[in-house]
């Protein structure tokens, strides 16, 4: 790297490992480098979210409604908010419903995402560009617009889905109400969310597949290994970190999803009977301007989703430690 000096220093300055810093690091030992690397992220997050997090915790211990909001002064009530929420039947029913909902969404997303990623790897160049561009098109649709289009497609008054199903003689679907029962409503929401989540999962997994060394795959093929075995013994282990990440992220997102169910089911059909956790938070906390309760539910959701994803997160953390 004869000429690399100045460019390396320039790049080095930007990347935080300049010569000056390196000698300092050399003096302090390797120890300082990782801290320097994570410092910007920690600082940004602390700066913006530090106070809000503290505020949330404090709010959860206060009675803080619109009246208190205007006066910037809450009334301390200790753990009363927590007791109230944990004794609320609606909280527990909603929790169960959301857990089942999350499991369905994550399962479908991961399985279908993996299949599409594998498909992307197997098609020819032009089809790959077509399919991946199509996925990105789906991904780039603003959620509100996507919900609107879905609502049209599944409209009671002869939406496209009803029309096609009737024309194909699957049955008489004229004026079929897809949002009449809770199960039907949440199924529609699941389809919408999975559809919207597939691009990200599929493209990320496809990127992960790109990391699988071609030589290994070819060697396995020469050895006569069947496709399934290759997938299980070579591809999956390499994809494991990414799969664990995507699964944990999907759990986190799908558990807290708000916009799609709220807009697709429509505020007028939202009742405690079809609440999901984030909607319960919104309705009980913010719609009623009971910010103390809202903060309590937020923190409880944080704990719950942490518990739900701990298995995946633990495995992810351990993988790092092993290498």
């Amino acid at each position: 790297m004869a000429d690399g000096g100045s460019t390396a220093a320039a790049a080095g300055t930007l990347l935080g490992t300049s010569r000056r810093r390196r000698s300092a690091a050399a003096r302090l030992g390797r120890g300082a480098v990782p801290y320097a690397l994570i410092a910007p992220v920690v600082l940004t997050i602390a700066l913006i979210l530090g106070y809000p997090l503290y505020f949330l915790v404090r709010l959860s211990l206060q009675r803080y409604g619109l009246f208190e909001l205007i006066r910037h002064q809450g009334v301390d009530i200790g753990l009363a908010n927590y007791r109230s929420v944990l004794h609320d039947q609606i909280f527990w029913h909603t929790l169960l419903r959301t857990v089942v909902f999350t499991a369905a969404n994550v399962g479908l997303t991961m399985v279908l995402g993996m299949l599409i990623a594998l498909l992307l790897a197997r098609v020819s160049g032009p089809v790959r560009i077509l399919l991946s561009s199509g996925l990105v098109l789906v991904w780039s649709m603003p959620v509100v617009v996507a919900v609107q289009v879905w609502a049209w497609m599944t409209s009671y008054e002869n939406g496209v889905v009803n029309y096609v199903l009737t024309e194909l003689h699957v049955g008489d679907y004229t004026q079929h109400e897809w949002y009449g029962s809770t199960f039907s409503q949440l199924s529609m929401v699941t389809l919408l969310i999975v559809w919207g989540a597939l691009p990200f999962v599929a493209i990320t997994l496809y990127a992960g597949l790109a990391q699988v060394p071609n030589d290994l795959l070819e060697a396995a093929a020469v050895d006569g290994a069947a496709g399934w075995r290759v997938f299980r013994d070579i591809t999956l282990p390499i994809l494991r970190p990414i799969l664990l990440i995507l699964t944990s992220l999907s759990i986190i997102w799908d558990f807290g999803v708000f916009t799609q169910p709220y807009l697709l089911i429509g505020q007028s059909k939202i009742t405690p009977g079809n609440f999901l956790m984030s909607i319960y938070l919104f309705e009980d906390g913010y719609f009623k301007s009971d910010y103390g309760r809202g903060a309590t539910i937020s923190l409880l959701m944080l704990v719950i989703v942490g518990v739900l994803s701990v298995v995946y997160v633990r495995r992810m953390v351990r993988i790092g430690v092993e290498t």
Partner: protein
Amino acid sequence: MRTRTPRLVWDAVGVAVFVVMVFPVFWMISTAFKPNEQIVSLTPTWIPLHPTLQHFRDAIHRPYFWVDVKNSLIIVSVAVALSIALAFLAAIALARFGFAGRKLFIVLVIGIQMLPQAGLIIPLYVVLARYHQVNTLSGVILTYLTFVLPFSVWTLRGFLLGIPKELEEAAMVDGSTRLGVFVKILLPLMGPGLVATSVFAFITTWNEYIFARILLNDQSKQTVTVWLSYFYGTSRHTDWGALMAASTLTAVPVVVFFLLVQRRIAFGLTSGAVRG
């Protein structure tokens, strides 16, 4: 040599999946070109035989369109560039170093994402108001950074862990410096991961609505998603054609961005490094 499924079959499946997935998008785009009567007609019109550009004209002529597009582009490009750069550094620290407080940092990164965003709206507004960052693009950028960073760190770490340490160690044995390793080995192999993460960051920040809505007051400072909301925020008649046209327009930069970077996700990058 076992028989493999011919490429043609896979291609056919690929096209079928494309059609199913893209149908709602197709519906949006075709509605943007339909004259109003066809939009609400009882019998769905698949492809408008007499397409009209009126909706696009209506959309572009709505006040503040170009200004808001500019604002979105600024916010998104800064947020994405900064978050990928910062997240990459942090991901390296997590994936390649052991240090005290590592577990805590991981918990922080994951924990942030578990916070329901609805709960953060008012506290965040209060904080930003204190720093005089309300109604500013920089305030929105900072907000987006905090939401995109944790995910980016987490995902990039995963990609990094997929790259065997032996590659780096072999290069170091060959006499390369740490920086050389970084540039010659890590960066190319991370290409796909960086692209996937940056596309995600781009889309998330481009389509974000509620915080942009709450933080930006002047229409000249708002983003294109807030601009979109004026189409359907009224209690009166919504101009669906114009809304679909406007949505189609706002999806364009994302697709362009993706097409530019998608070349980086390709097979053979790895094999090059292994042999070289």
